[in-house]
């Protein structure tokens, strides 16, 4: 006698197929907004992109053409300075957390890092305003970098800590047993072995803040001219997009779409770079 009748078996197979296609459907649904955004921005922005778009300053209203050189340079500088500020603090914190995983202070720091993730970016902007813009008396790229660095920290710390914690005790002991002092073991064994994870954490945190607008509104502020002085107001891609998108001029809208496309490609490249680093440089224990 058959335990399961053919009829019931059919029904089960059908149900299993249904569930499988349901799961697939909803997965594809999550991709829809992403694909839509990508296609739409490419469609709107590609027309704006040409050589002068990258090397020229925006033209005054009424003149056509012009570019976003000031925003492009500004974004590079602001994000670059933010990275320089955040990396030492972030890596040092991650090291502390991974070396003292169970300590009380580590627990407190970890909790603060969690909270930092949830703080709205505009609030971070206000903090930087209060710390730097108010005492200095004017908006500056540096204050924008500080705001962005604060936003980078939690992402960087968490991913670096995860990588550092995976470092096996056996290798730490191998180094110590050779008479290598603790701090040299950290610098010359632990960090190089964890390099790919730490680097990709840094790059991901950069990718996360490249497009942030709110923290820059009253810090870097924006600037219609090209400047490299980080103590002065500076333009950046997201600020340019924000300002031009709410303007009433078509030529500015066009520049904003182009800038959005550039920003998108930048972030995409950072993500690809992360994958390459993980694939090429990761050390297997």
């Amino acid at each position, binding site marked *: 006698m058959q335990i399961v009748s053919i009829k019931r078996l059919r029904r089960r197979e059908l149900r299993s197929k249904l569930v499988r296609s349901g799961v697939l459907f909803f997965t594809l649904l999550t991709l829809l907004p992403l694909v839509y955004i990508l296609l739409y921005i490419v469609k709107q922005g590609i027309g704006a992109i040409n050589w002068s778009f990258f090397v020229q300053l925006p033209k005054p209203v009424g003149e056509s053409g012009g570019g976003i050189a000031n925003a492009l340079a500004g974004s590079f500088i602001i994000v670059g300075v933010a990275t320089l500020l955040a990396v030492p603090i972030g890596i040092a914190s991650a090291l502390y957390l991974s070396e003292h995983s169970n300590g009380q202070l580590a627990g407190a720091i970890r909790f603060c890092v969690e909270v930092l993730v949830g703080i709205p970016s505009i609030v971070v902007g206000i903090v930087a305003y209060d710390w730097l813009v108010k005492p200095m008396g004017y908006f500056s790229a540096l204050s924008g970098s500080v705001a962005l660095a604060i936003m980078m920290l939690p992402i960087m710390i968490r991913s670096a800590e995860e990588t550092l914690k995976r470092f*096996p005790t*056996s*290798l730490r*002991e*191998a*180094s*110590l*047993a*050779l*008479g*290598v*002092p603790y701090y*040299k*073991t950290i610098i*010359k*064994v632990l960090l*190089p*072995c964890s*390099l790919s994870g730490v680097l990709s954490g840094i790059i991901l945190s950069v990718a996360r803040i490249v497009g942030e607008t709110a923290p820059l509104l009253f810090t870097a502020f924006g600037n219609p001219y090209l400047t490299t002085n980080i103590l002065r107001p500076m333009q950046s891609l997201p600020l340019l997009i924000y300002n031009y998108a709410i303007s009433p001029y078509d030529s500015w809208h066009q520049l904003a779409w182009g800038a959005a496309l550039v920003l998108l490609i930048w972030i995409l490249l950072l993500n690809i770079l992360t994958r390459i680093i993980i694939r090429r440089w990761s*050390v*297997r*224990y």
Partner: protein
Amino acid sequence: MERPILEVKDFHAWFGTHEVVRNVNLSLHRNRVIAVMGPSGCGKTTFLRCINRMHELTPGARTEGQILLEGEDIYRMSPIMLRLRVGMVFQRPNPFPHMTIYENVLAGYLLNNIKLNRNDKEAIVESSLRKAALWEEVKDNLKKKGTFLSGGQQQRLCIARAIAMKPDILLLDEPTSALDPISTAGIEELLQELKKNYTLILVTHNMQQAARVSDDTAFFYMGELVEFAPTRQLFTAPQDQRTQNYITGRFS
């Protein structure tokens, strides 16, 4: 009689409140293989890790008593200087994954920023790998990562790394327990060669291995050093009932 290379006097070791090594007294002589054997949890590995002061790296660990390396109290030395003189090979091969074979052999120098010129480097790499019986197998691949080697080769690389520092004593913590029988035989054969230049202290849970490779054997049981004697004597005419029970397989 010449002065022992290592003397252990009234030595105790704890993890927190748990006493793992109890009142060990021992004198070890040069150019011999000394096996430290005993059942799991008998304190043999902890004892070994006290000799290069790796034990104290565990939080809550402490020791009492003396260990003298050529008459000098190791607990008055800097642990770094001590570890340059007492090398260690671990249970599982642990070559540095971010270094080539060449760099792995020199790791003790590279990581300690000890400057060597190119000729010295090459001489050290070749002689260490030769002593570790690995030279012929890797001489054309010195620039490859150490982790590409087989388990037995990796373990010999770790031995080369330890002896490159020209230590007085080489500690081996069950160095074959993660290896297949052929690699194990290779390492055991190597130990006989190495004792010409070094004093080897080998922790093993494998009695047959202790009998095969060692000149002297220390039998640990429940943290105590039950018996220490030349290997042949310990295996043929044990003085202590517990040793007798262990080597006849009445407990493990």
